[in-house]
């Protein structure tokens, strides 16, 4: 059926689900959209402190778009993905975003990576009314419909993640002393907010933070050890998860580590641990680590989404490792394709945003549903806890939980979906 839709583009497939006019011919309906192409842009840390791991995300999205283009595109249009390096430096993000909007005339900014970097341009993009889609950051700042009407998050926000992890600690690691180690910005602080909501702020043995520009985390880890914390929740980017684990191992400190999703990708961490310790240790430090996920696990080769994306990876970007970053890039590219499909044949910037608020996209590869509505610009609303075994294999534990920043946690009853046969929405 899905193949039929793509082949017979002019046959009005999906008319029943969309109010927009899908029949007719392609027009250059908005900046960045021609009869045959859609151009979108992004700023990514291809170099600099956040590059390890994260620099794979945009090439992975691009691989999905190449696959999509080879299979007929969206309403016959091919997607051109113009991603540029900002070195995780907000000032460069600011100038590169203006280049994408003013010179390259992109239809939308897609998957721009980083909280400090993207905060630098969110005002600008909304003033210019450029759709600002699926920011690669779990800051809840993107869910501010009155301030940023054109900005949409994608991954679960860090507060929701903190709440679900906090609930797990309360239930499965009860009675143990808990300490925090977090990045001293919106990322870490949002996560801590969610954790405190579940664990109670007064019960925390020690709260330690770091800034990404200072790689010496010795004092913080020593303070956690001195506080007697038996569980350390770590809202860290991969490099700092690795530094924390290594420093703790050196000090002979072995708490149960609970690490946020963005800092827990097993292949990335194994590589970093090996590099930082000059080969002395590797993935064995990850045994027993608790984390969470909102996408299927990369090791779950029976999952149809993993099969699809792994196949695209092998075909288009086989030089990159198959890891969580690549999965992330492909999954959010899939969501963008869904959104374009829902927006109809000839969208404008504002009709696209309206459609995303009302279309109720299916959750695609995600484990939890999307939150998109006219009052909510959050992406995935929930996560599932996962643990890493001594051999490095990740397994999910318990059900998927959804929540919001202020609401209660509830168990998600929906079932996982399967991709369309040809892999495009």
């Amino acid at each position, binding site marked *: 059926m899905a193949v039929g839709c793509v082949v017979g583009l002019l046959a009005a497939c999906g008319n029943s689900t969309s109010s927009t006019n899908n029949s007719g011919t392609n027009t250059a309906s908005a900046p960045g959209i021609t009869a045959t192409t859609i151009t979108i842009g992004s700023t990514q840390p*291809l*170099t600099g402190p956040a*590059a390890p791991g994260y*620099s794979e995300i945009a*090439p992975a999205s691009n691989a999905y778009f190449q696959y999509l283009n080879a299979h007929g595109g969206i309403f016959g249009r091919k997607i051109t993905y113009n991603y*540029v*390096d900002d070195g*995780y*430096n*907000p*000032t*460069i993000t*600011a*100038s590169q975003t*203006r*280049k994408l909007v*003013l*010179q390259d005339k992109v239809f939308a900014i897609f998957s721009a990576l980083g*909280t*400090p970097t993207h*905060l*630098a*341009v969110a*005002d*600008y993009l909304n*003033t210019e009314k450029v759709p600002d889609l699926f920011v690669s950051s779990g800051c809840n700042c993107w869910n501010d419909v009155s301030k940023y009407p054109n900005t949409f998050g994608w991954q679960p926000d860090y507060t929701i993640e903190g709440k679900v992890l906090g609930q797990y600690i309360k239930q499965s690691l009860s009675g143990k002393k808990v300490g925090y180690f977090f990045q*001293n*910005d*919106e990322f870490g602080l949002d996560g801590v907010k969610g954790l405190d909501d579940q664990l109670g702020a007064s019960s925390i043995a020690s709260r330690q933070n770091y*800034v*990404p*520009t200072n790689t010496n985390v010795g004092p913080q880890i020593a303070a956690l050890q001195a506080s007697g914390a038996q569980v350390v929740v770590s809202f860290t980017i991969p490099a700092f998860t690795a530094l924390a684990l290594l420093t703790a191992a050196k000090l002979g400190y072995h708490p149960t580590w609970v690490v946020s999703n963005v800092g827990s990708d097993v292949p990335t961490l194994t590589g970093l641990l090996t590099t930082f310790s000059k080969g002395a240790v590797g993935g064995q430090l990850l045994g027993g680590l608790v984390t969470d996920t909102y996408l299927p696990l990369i090791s779950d080769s029976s999952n149809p989404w993993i099969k699809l994306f792994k196949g695209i990876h092998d075909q288009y970007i086989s*030089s*990159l490792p198959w890891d969580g970053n690549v999965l992330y890039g492909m999954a959010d590219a899939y969501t963008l394709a869904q959104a374009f499909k829902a927006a109809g044949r000839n969208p404008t910037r504002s009709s696209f945003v309206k459609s995303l608020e009302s279309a109720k996209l299916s959750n695609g590869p995600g484990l939890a549903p999307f939150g998109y509505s006219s009052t909510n610009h959050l992406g995935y609303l929930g996560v599932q806890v996962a643990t890493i075994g001594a051999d490095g294999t990740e397994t999910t534990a318990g059900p998927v939980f959804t929540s919001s920043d202020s609401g209660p946690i509830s168990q998600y009853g929906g079932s996982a979906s399967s991709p369309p046969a040809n892999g495009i929405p």
Partner: protein
Amino acid sequence: MVAAQLRLSRLVSPTLSRHLLLALGAAVLLLLLSAQIGAYDDYQLTAVAIFAVATAGLTLLTGLNGQLSLGHGALMAVGAYTTSLLLKDHQLAVVVVLLVSVLSTGLIGIVFGYAAARLRGPYLAGATLTLAVALPQVATRYKNIFGGEEGLTVTPTAPPAWLGADFPPERWLAWIALAAAVVTILLLANLLRSSAGRAFKAVRDNEAAAALAGIDVARTQVLAFVISASCAGLAGALFAYWSGVTAPAGFSLSLSLQLVTAIVIGGLGSLAGAVWGSVVLVFVPALTSGMASSLNLPSSIANNLPLAIYGAILVIAMLMVPYGIQGALTRILKIGRTRWGRSPASGNKGVVDWDDPAADP
């Protein structure tokens, strides 16, 4: 009485009128240019103007007073944070914001200038280097005031209503930055032709000789530092408007080094060279990233290639034109003049052109 007459005649001296005329010509040309080009070109032109303000100030300090500063990026940060803090809760006119930023950076410049005047060569470079490394950390340490790593966002200046509703905000900012650059360079060019300017150069060339000639060496050095810092403050304030965000990562050590690179590549000791250097700073990286992406290389190489090409271009440029762009242009002009039988500097006989690096001993 005589002094008053002298001062009066200096106000309408041929140098000033020549500079004024040049500045006016440049302003008109730039105005016409900015109206012809697209919004993104205006945005880049603004960047050139901002860097020109900073590098012109640095040229005064390093090229003409002999004090090497590796901390001008941090001084730009002072101007940028002043602007961002002023605009955080208030709506103020651009002119006011720029002036306050110049003053606040000038104040920091006085403090640092006094320390700098006691130091020489590598010690001075080291001291200013600390400024570049330490000052951005203040922003992360006092997160509540300076916004930490995310920094502070800056409200853009809207073009005035009489320019029409469709007037691009990028062009309006370009006008502001270009006006600031033209005024800064005009004032500096004038200063350099005055007794203060001659004192700067005398101190650079030989401190003992300058002191014997009655010049207060330390005071001259502090003055040069303060003027230079004020320029950096103005550039920083414009930079805040330009990028829309003031964050510590924007004012790293590499910015300070870029400014030094610009004045060397442009032609050390010449204000025109500072402008050339700013053009290089803005346009060469854009060119190299275009080159790298057109080569279709593996991402691990392609990602790092623009910086590598940029570095290679700078090295080759320094090997081929050691006096910088302005030095090379002066030489070409000189060759042209001798070939076509015109004596060099025929317009102002007997005057050594201090702005001409090729004419320096």
